[in-house]
């Protein structure tokens, strides 16, 4: 026994789908566009601020060193504030220097010490800002790569436009039953198709930022170097852990590529996936490669 929806059921189903799928999805896309665009703008401003701050404090520190009259009373140059020892060791004693070329001031060390300390302290602060600001700016850049706000705006805008196309196929009350049924199906299939395509594109966008992966690789190398003086047993254990991590990450990447293929449904005719982008981890060392960690001693 075949069962088809009658006209009444189709009309109510259309209303339900229109309200709870098309309209709801459209609202979601619109809000996602607004939210992602605003987030991208805010983070972009923060990045621009840190870039400006880096240049500004560097230039200001350079100007202060240039305007500095020469050496302080302890014989060090005013520019010595540019060394980390001066930055970190900015205690009153360490900073108790005096401008040269003012022998008359030697009898009044308190006043002179205060002036020179302030200069060196300010240069030290500027230098720290010049080091920290680009690191923070870079961190916000990576954050932007992680969340992909700009690309998501594009994806959701396209989805919104495509939903309009699906909406254009909505049935009209004056249509006869067959026509009405075909219109309802075209309208619903079109909407579901937009949702599926948006999901596939979204799945393609999400990936680990390259800068974070590069950092992890560098950290692995540093950790390898740092553990070289350890006993053989400990080194073997760490080597095993790192190899396990590499293997797990490669397996993860393999599964991820499979998932990406499934999201996009872009299998080749022979059932395989298209060639993948470069792996996110360094290749597993072969027997010909130098050992990961040199022997102790």
């Amino acid at each position, binding site marked *: 026994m075949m069962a*088809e929806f009658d006209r009444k059921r189709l009309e109510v189903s259309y209303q339900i789908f229109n309200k709870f799928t098309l309209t709801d999805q459209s609202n979601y896309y619109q*809000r996602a566009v607004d939210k992602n665009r605003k987030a991208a703008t805010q983070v972009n401003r923060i990045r621009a601020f840190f870039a400006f701050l880096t240049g500004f404090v560097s230039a200001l520190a350079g100007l202060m060193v240039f305007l500095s009259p020469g050496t302080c009373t302890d014989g060090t140059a005013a520019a010595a504030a540019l060394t*980390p020892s001066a930055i970190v060791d900015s205690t009153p004693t360490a900073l108790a220097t005096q401008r040269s070329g003012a022998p008359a001031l030697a009898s009044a060390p308190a006043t002179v010490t205060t002036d020179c300390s302030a200069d060196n302290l300010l240069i030290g602060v500027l230098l720290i800002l010049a080091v920290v600001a680009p690191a923070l700016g870079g961190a916000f850049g990576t954050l932007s790569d992680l969340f992909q706000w700009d690309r998501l705006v594009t994806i959701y805008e396209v989805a919104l436009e495509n939903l309009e196309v699906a909406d254009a196929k909505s049935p009209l009350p004056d249509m006869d039953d067959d026509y009405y049924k075909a219109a309802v199906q075209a309208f619903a299939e079109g909407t579901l198709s937009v949702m599926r395509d948006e999901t596939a594109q979204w*799945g393609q966008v999400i990936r680990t930022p390259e800068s974070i992966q590069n950092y992890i690789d*560098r*950290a692995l190398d540093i950790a390898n170097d*740092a553990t070289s003086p350890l006993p053989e047993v400990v080194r073997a254990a760490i080597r095993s852990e790192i190899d396990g991590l590499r293997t797990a990450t490669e397996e993860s990447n393999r599964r991820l590529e499979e998932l990406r293929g*499934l999201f996009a449904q872009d299998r080749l005719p022979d059932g395989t996936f298209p060639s993948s982008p470069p792996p996110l981890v360094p290749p597993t060392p072969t027997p010909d490669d130098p050992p990961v960690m040199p022997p102790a001693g």
Partner: protein
Amino acid sequence: MTQATNTPSSPSATPAPNTQAPKDGRERWSVWMKELPRWNFKPEKPELDPPTPLINEKDLEEILATADAETAQSIRADIQFLEYEVLRLFRKRDHSAAKQQNMYRFYQILFLILAAIATTLGSLQALSLNANDRNWLALFAFLETMVALASVYLATISGREPPLTLWMMNRRRAEQLRREYFRFLMDLEPYNGRNKIQRRLLLSERAAEINRGVFPDESGIT
């Protein structure tokens, strides 16, 4: 893509979608900060989450009030059946996807912080080459090694069950379950032309397949 972490109160005049996410106390934060991961993801289990239907019951009743009794009853019966066969699985997948998304972003932000610290330490290390006291060089090198070791530790614990893979896997299944929900309700292919029992059996089978990662054709979609 409806993500469970979507907050209902975005800075837009557009009506809020029928989201799965509860209010999270970040309404007054900057938009980009609302996206940051949570230290404690709640609820821990999907059963603890208040069951949000894909179709708001009150709005549904407004629509059904205009329909005849038989049609309304038929639609209610379908929705009730979907509640167990599809929504139960959808909620689990949606919750898992949101949880893994939070965890993935949490790890990535920790890496990001460690990378920023390492960059700063590296810059200070380079500057310390000019210092008279070489101890600074050694200190910064030591601190940078500690940051690198912390990164390796983090990479190891995040690599066992990679959250990105799990996030995408669960999200894909949740989204397809959601589409299947409306496909059944609208009597689209492959449900059209079947009697009530056949439709329901087919839905149960397809929902279970989607839930275990075998994706049946969405044959009506071109």
